[in-house]
């Protein structure tokens, strides 16, 4: 199979994730879109690793997953605690830190 298709898929996934972050209001969905972007990048890394016959890209993909796991833990905790205090998971409601 042509590895280019993986790259197209990855670009598609990244674009969906980016649009999701920009246009969705629900914090959980925004969060999931961020994950989607991360995994799209992972896919790219692995694909290029395969194309070049070099394992470095796959190693980096593992690092990304570990970091993403840690980030999910912290991020979800924040979202849950914001929801508990404000009874809302909308990112537009959490806009106190501004001018």
């Amino acid at each position: 199979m042509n590895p280019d298709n993986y790259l197209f898929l990855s670009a598609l996934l990244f674009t969906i994730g980016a649009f999701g972050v920009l246009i969705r209001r629900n914090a959980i969905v925004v969060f999931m879109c961020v994950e989607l972007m991360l995994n799209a990048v992972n896919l790219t890394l692995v694909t290029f690793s395969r194309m070049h016959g070099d394992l470095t890209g796959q190693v980096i993909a593992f690092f990304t997953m570990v970091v993403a796991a840690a980030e999910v833990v912290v991020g979800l905790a924040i979202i849950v605690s914001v929801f508990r205090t404000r009874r809302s998971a909308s990112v537009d409601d959490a806009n106190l830190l501004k001018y």
Partner: protein
Amino acid sequence: MESLIWLVPGLPLFGAAILLLGGKRTNAWGHLLGCLAALGSFALAAGLFFTMLGKHGAARSMHQHLYSWVPVPGTGQHPFQADVAFQLDQLSVVFILLITGVGSLIHIYSIGYMSHDPERRKFFSYLNLFLAAMLILVLADNYLLLYVGWEGVGLASYLLIGFWQAKPSAAAAAKKAFVVNRVGDVGLSIAIMLMFVTFGSFNFGTVFGTAGGASKGTLTAIGIMLLLAACGKSAQFPLQSWLGDAMEGPTPVSALIHAATMVTAGVYLIVRSHAIFDLSPTARLLVTIVGAITLLFGAIVGCAKDDIKKSLAGSTMSQIGYMILAAGLGPIGYAFAIMHLVTHGFFKAGLFLGAGSVMHGMDDEVNMRHYGGLRKYMPITFGTFFLGYLAIIGCPPFSGFYSKDKIIEAAFSKGGTSGWILGGAALLGALITAFYMTRMVIMTFFGEKRWVPDAEGHEPHPHESPLSMGLPMLLLAVGSVAAGFLFSMNSAFVNWLEPVTGPRAEGKLPGGLNSTTLSIITLAAVAVGVAIAVVKYGTGKVPAVAPRGSFITVAARKDLYGDAFNEAALMRPGQYLTRTLVYTDNRGVDGAINGLAALVGGTSGRLRRLQTGFVRSYALSMFGGAAALVAAILFAKL
């Protein structure tokens, strides 16, 4: 005796310290301690004088070194050495006798005069301080210590002129005296600095001994600066304006300032520094010009004032002008300047105390137009005042005749055109003096009663003052009568001062004058002055409200526009300058800084709006940035 010199200024200084530090506890006996300190100082001065009489020649000059004040061991060109050391020679002994003698009498007089004042103790402490400062001034053996006394006199005069500081006019007068004196003080400090640079020392001995080695320009500069200092302290033109306002102080203070302390300091300074003036004819000429202008200025002002004390103040200015003129004449005049200073000390103190006594009896009325006919009610005051009057107009054989006549003669014998001008000014001054003093005596003691009831409708009840006030007046009157005659006997005074002021040069009178004809001319001028005053004030009624008068009278009432000139030439431009500076500062400097700050603030206020707090907008900018970055990399690669 020599080791006791320090006690002469020391006693009044201790007196002042005890009275000031002791506070209210000393209220009961403070005035007595003040008098005792002054009298003790006088006794010491007299003792020193007799010790001096017992010696001869150079041994008469005594010296006491108290301690090294600022010793800086010499590494540079001029090792700095300032000592607290006193020098008592023939000149300073005259001064300490005058200061402590007249000062003591004024102290005694003040017991009665200030008896109703709750702050009498404070008054005496200031009087003592005044005496101490003046004594330090005349006893110092170097210019730096003299400067200490000089400033002390300025401080004490400030405190005393503003003694009734609750009155705004008194507070303003005190400030004025202090500020005007400050101008003169700057002159003295510059003169001292110049001396240190030129001679490397402040000591009288070193400065006068090496004065011949300095350049003419330096000596003239020092002389002019010393003259400026003398103008400030002695109220000479153009720094005369404070003297009239200084009458706001209690009358004994006026007597003290005008007779024994303060205004005589300038004359002392010039005569003491004669070694410098001897070598600089330019500086001497300036001194005579200042003296001549002031003696006419003061006399004209004295003619127009209705306030008895202000009229006397004008008279002091004029008489000090005579002394400065004599001092400026050089070796022919130094001794006469000091002689006139001493005789003036007697009669002017007497006149002021007499004026104070009249005011005391007339409920503090000072306007002579509201006096009149007082000679029957105050015989002692009248008698002593009249003797002082005869002395000041130069009626023989009273003291003013001997001293003033000699000054007029010395002015004429200066020679040349300047001699004629200066002599003429002195002669004219004598005429005007006779006029205004006669006017004062007639308006106060003769004629009809023009008494005015005070604000509550009480008629004044003039009465003779108590003995504590009468006795000093009597003693001073004796001085006004006899001093001149005693001093002139065998030229005693001139010979006494000769070791200090140098051998007296005999001037030659010009134009066929000799001293007898000149005396007659002077007496004729005095008689004319008296006659004009008698015709003008003695024969007719004196109006209770001052008539408008000629333009000279109007000008003289306003001190010949001295204050107006100071205001227009110095105060207003200064005010405009500061206002312009403040405006420039507010609008220019502050404007630029504030504008810049507003610009930065405004810009950042608008930029701040970018921080919306919405996650999506931050995310968008991040994406935009990342996209731009990628685009840039791709663009660069391709």
